[in-house]
């Protein structure tokens, strides 16, 4: 298979090198144009994100193409050869296909299962099509990659659960409260993580955000950023009864939220479920609060536990995904191999048809003696005989090609039928 893939990713190359490469390619350069000027490169795709740079190509001469693509990366990264060798990986044939499928399915991503890479790959492919850098092989390969990514996404839970603490908070809120539509979120104190979690909650349907802080000015400032309502600390008890989700992250030394406070609030809110998230260290919420019925208290370690569990789950799912990718690589290889016998099949048919044409011409004199209809019938009959005779060898060739064993047959057919060149 003449597909090659040369690239580097976050695992093989440090940020500074990836950075240099991405920058130089951003400055009005046309990597595809440049790649296609290389004679050994017949089709090319250039994918560049903050975590990876990959060049996929259909090569005429594999070795030559690999060397030229390496040189291309070397030039643009301002790297020396030794550095480059350390960072680059080169895959050929099925390995290149597998790598591309893994990248598309987000198995090779820094955060496994994150969905952006597929979009980035689609953008790269769009560029590639617009600049007419793709041909039959890359078109098929990329579409196959997109299909594989979709299969992985639907058949495994690789993108299933939150792998950041703030998302884990949203996930838990949904597990406890059900729909977040119209829920009220109370931020006690403010910090980056609690703001982020609040934003995620808003995006997932939460209706209202209240920000409580010791200094009203700070509360107002944070509330302004996330369209919340600021309140002073003295209103905390009162607001506790309105909130469904409380995220606490003050710098206080003692407990800010205590069981009696929560019990009172709960009574006033008729025991509606209350989800308390304590991401402060030292803790803001008295751990005993979590024992109250209908109150669920998660601290930073609990949320991290959720994240760890989710990461483990993604890794389990990744094994399933590798299986799917294996299948798809095989399927692509089958298609590719049938491609190898296509020229032989075409010349076989051409030869048969030229014989037919020649013979009909030779017999022209007596054919003209027949009526119009009979003449047609004879032509049809001859064409049918040819098709019937060719049918079995052609199907046989295609079948053999799937298991990559067609070459001896191709050679034999070319020799026996004296197809041009005699050799494949």
């Amino acid at each position, binding site marked *: 298979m003449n597909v090659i893939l040369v690239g580097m990713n976050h695992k093989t190359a440090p940020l500074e090198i990836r950075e240099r490469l991405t920058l130089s390619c951003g400055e009005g350069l046309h990597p595809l144009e440049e790649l296609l000027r290389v004679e050994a490169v017949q089709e090319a795709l250039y994918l560049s994100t903050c975590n990876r740079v990959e060049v996929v190509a259909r090569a005429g001469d594999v070795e030559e193409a690999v060397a030229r693509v390496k040189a291309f990366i070397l030039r643009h990264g301002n790297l020396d050869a030794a550095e480059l060798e350390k960072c680059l990986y080169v895959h050929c044939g099925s390995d290149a296909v597998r790598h591309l499928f893994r990248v598309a399915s987000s198995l090779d991503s820094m955060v496994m299962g994150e969905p952006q890479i597929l979009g980035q790959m689609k953008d790269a492919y769009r560029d590639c099509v617009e600049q007419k850098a793709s041909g039959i092989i890359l078109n098929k390969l990329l579409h196959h990659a997109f299909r594989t990514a979709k299969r992985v996404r639907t058949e495994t839970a690789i993108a299933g*659960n939150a792998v950041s603490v703030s998302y884990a908070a949203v996930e*838990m809120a*949904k*597990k*406890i*409260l*059900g*729909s977040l539509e119209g829920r009220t979120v109370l931020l006690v104190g403010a910090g980056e993580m609690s703001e982020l979690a609040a934003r995620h909650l808003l995006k997932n349907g939460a209706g209202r955000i209240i920000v409580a802080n010791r200094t009203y000015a700070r509360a107002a400032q944070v509330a302004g950023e996330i369209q919340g309502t600021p309140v002073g600390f003295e209103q905390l008890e009162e607001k506790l009864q309105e909130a469904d989700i409380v995220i606490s992250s003050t710098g206080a030394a003692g407990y800010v939220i205590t069981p009696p406070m929560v019990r009172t609030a709960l*009574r006033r*809110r*008729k*025991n*509606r*479920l209350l989800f308390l998230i304590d991401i402060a260290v030292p803790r803001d919420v008295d751990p005993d609060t*979590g024992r109250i*019925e*209908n109150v*669920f208290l998660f601290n930073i370690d*609990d949320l991290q*536990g*959720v994240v760890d*569990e989710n990461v*483990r*789950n993604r890794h389990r799912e990744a094994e399933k995904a590798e299986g799917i990718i294996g299948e798809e690589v095989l399927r692509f290889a089958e298609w590719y191999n049938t491609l190898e016998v296509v020229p032989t099949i075409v010349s076989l048919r051409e030869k048969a048809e030229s014989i037919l044409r020649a013979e009909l011409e030779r017999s022209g004199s007596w054919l003209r003696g027949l009526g119009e209809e009979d003449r047609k019938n004879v032509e049809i009959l001859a064409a049918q005989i040819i098709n019937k005779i060719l049918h079995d060898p052609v199907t046989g060739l295609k079948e053999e090609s799937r298991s990559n064993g067609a070459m001896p047959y191709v050679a034999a057919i070319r020799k026996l039928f004296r197809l041009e060149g005699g050799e494949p």
Partner: protein
Amino acid sequence: MDTLFFKAALAAYFAATAGYLVSLVARRVVMARIATWILGLAVALHTVHFLEMCAERGLNVAVNLFEAVSFFAWIVSSAYLVFQLRTRTRVLGAIVAPFAVMLMMLASLGAEGTLAIPDALQGRLVPVHVTLSIIGEGLFALASLAGVMYCIQDRQIRRRRMGGLARYLPSLGDLDSINHAGLLWGFPLLTLGLIAGSVWAKTAWGGSQWVTDPKTLWSFAVWCFYAFLLHQRLAIGWKGRRIAVLSIAALVVLISAFIGVNFLSGVHRFT
């Protein structure tokens, strides 16, 4: 009575149960979604069975105990299908479907049982009493089944077992709202059913002997239990685990009233 559709429904309930169990083991919500469609098919077949019955003998769909149990299964399943449209509780079917299968197996023991209504139970209000009561009790049963799953999920979350089952079970809020809806709709229906029964007993039998009949007493106990639950829920604001636990206890009382006590009462019973 042709039992073709009954048998088909029983088979579909079985298939739905199998689907839910597979989804529990494989932890895939997709499987539960398929199982929910199969449960829908089961309910549809079961409905055809009841329509056939109605065409034959009017709205008398629960003449003997076995038919009553079958009707009970139909109510629980169809109410669940309606409620799960509003909440994301597809996996709750993993409790509802096996429950329906158990009832249906019990019902199939007498699928061709007696159809004679005793003389003492002839009257227009009797089918009204029976139908409304079973619908009310079916909704209660559904509320309780949601309570069972609530307790499981509550335990998982409190023990921070977020990996396996908890990821897959419905959210506490959704389960609680099914419990709420079941109590809220079941209560007026059962009340009307009991009133219909009392009015009829008063006029047909007269006297007060029927009041002390064991089944009447048990039914009244069930009614009181659920009335208490609904009151606590709406007026006092009991929610979540406490109501869930009490709902499970109420289900035990309900089932004993429905099936067990049937054999204690002389007249007031399904044959």
